[in-house]
């Protein structure tokens, strides 16, 4: 292993340990509202990045995730704000849970509708089509007076807390851990690698593409609902193409070989602009610059598949200071 790779691994290990410590410390010993809000946005960004990663892991590049997020946000906010829906079972208030679920399901339905035209096209055309879908959704909400139209939808109750957002994140991550090891995960991987080969091995492409889009859109819808009930005000500009590109960047920088990539990318790229607060308006330039540097130095993103084993970390960290042996 090269020295630069060992240094990168060390960097990742340190940041992961630090991030985990930071998160746990703030979960249990609440410090201030500012840090809490960044942690909440980080979790929302991770969920939506994972929503992008899922179809991507099957070779389907979707820039419609922001649109699906918008569907979830508007749907769940309609339930809690416009319709003033309440649902309790004994001492449990399930209103928010049901609102989120409804947002996710509606987004999944839109995702399935998106998947059908997407069945026949690949690559850059798929990217353009999903971009168009995202814009259609945005412009729909811009003109849909029922949910506020151009003036947006305000007065949403603050139901998202750091606890429920991280519980949701943990559930989503557990889902990915399972899917990756499942037959479906293996089929996705094959489709990404070689769609035609996967097809002649018996993978039902239609079914898997529709499922990938649906689950991806569902997760985006959930993240939208969490976002709406934390931001407390949403309008169509929150869910534009730019959001989709941001989601794409989270995943590309974090790594797109394995679900840990978007988790890492989503977390640290939420914090990065906060740390660079002085140049906040320039953060996209920083992101863009980072993206270019990464594409050259580490085209598959920071986290790679091989890093998912304990053996990798044991051997890397044990050999960290060994001088490089020239063959």
């Amino acid at each position, binding site marked *: 292993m090269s020295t630069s790779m060992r240094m990168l691994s060390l960097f990742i290990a340190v940041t992961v340990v630090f991030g985990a410590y930071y998160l746990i410390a703030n979960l249990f010993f609440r410090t201030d509202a500012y840090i809490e809000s960044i942690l909440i946005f980080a979790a929302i960004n991770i969920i939506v990045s994972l929503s992008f990663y899922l179809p991507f892991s099957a070779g389907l590049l979707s820039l419609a995730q922001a649109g699906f997020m918008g569907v979830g946000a508007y749907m769940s906010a309609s339930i809690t704000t416009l319709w003033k829906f309440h649902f309790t079972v004994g001492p449990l208030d399930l209103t928010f849970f049901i609102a989120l679920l409804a947002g996710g399901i509606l987004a999944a339905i839109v995702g399935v509708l998106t998947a059908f035209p997407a069945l026949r096209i690949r690559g850059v055309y798929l990217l353009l089509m999903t971009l168009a879908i995202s814009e259609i959704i945005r412009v729909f909400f811009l003109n849909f007076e029922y949910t506020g139209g151009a003036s947006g939808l305000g007065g949403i109750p603050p139901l998202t807390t750091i606890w429920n957002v991280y519980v949701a994140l943990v559930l989503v991550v557990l889902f990915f851990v399972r899917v990756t090891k499942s037959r479906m995960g*293996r089929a996705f991987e094959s489709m990404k*690698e*070689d769609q035609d*080969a996967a*097809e*002649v*091995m*018996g993978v*039902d492409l*239609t079914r898997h593409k529709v499922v990938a889009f649906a689950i991806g859109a569902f997760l985006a819808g959930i993240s939208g609902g969490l976002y709406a009930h934390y931001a407390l005000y949403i309008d169509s500009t929150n869910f534009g193409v730019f959001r989709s590109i941001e989601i794409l960047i989270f995943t590309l920088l974090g790594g797109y070989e394995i679900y840990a990539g978007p988790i890492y990318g989503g977390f640290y790229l939420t914090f990065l602009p906060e740390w660079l607060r002085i140049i906040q308006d320039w953060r996209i330039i920083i992101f863009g610059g980072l993206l270019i540097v990464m594409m050259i130095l580490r085209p598959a993103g920071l986290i790679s598949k091989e890093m998912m084993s304990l053996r990798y970390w044991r051997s890397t960290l044990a050999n960290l200071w060994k001088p490089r042996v020239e063959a």
Partner: protein
Amino acid sequence: MLKVSNLYAAYGEILALKGVSLEVREGETVTLIGSNGAGKSTLLKTISGVMRPRGGDIVFDGHHLNRMKPHEIVRQGIVQVQEGRAILKRLTVLENLEMGGYLRPRDTEYREDLQRIFERFPILDQRKQQLAGSLSGGEQQMLAIARGLMAKPRLIMMDEPSLGLAPLIVSEIFRIIAEMKKEGRTILLVEQNARKALQVSDRGYVIVTGNIILEDSCEALLGNSEVQEAYLGGRKA
């Protein structure tokens, strides 16, 4: 077992198969020879469902395959080993083999088959945790064949298995095909290396620009002067 009758297929407006009829009986090895662009690969792709036929009929064990999707055809027991190997380079050798048996339950028979594959291809056993892309060309072709076998096919179709391989490896691949034949497998082989292919097969078809022009036993085809002229590099030495 497999009966193709009057099959038409086209790329856009260009007809690639113009009424092809062909039969493969159980336990038989059949070779399809023809030059570049004659429609050999198109025929395999149409049988495996990757391409939709424009007309004609494909019947496998009494089931019409014409309207079936590729995964349904795999389920019927037809597996295609694609041209250019088409292994999944970023998956390990073992994962590739598992993908071969994608539609099968993970039962004892599956594990026995996997074990048998490793006995037959010891090199794949040694490299099972390696990425498939790191294998040599010949090893990749073996993996492609092994992956096809993992599907427990009743008919295995091989598209140019010797393509781009060194002569020694080509012989090795044909030895494997001969072995599979001896086991009683049903094989439909498409090859440019006509002499070797005819030597391991029972019957052969000659396809020219989308038409089958000749069908005979392999000995007869090897002795046919036109076939020698066109596909076997001149008269027999």
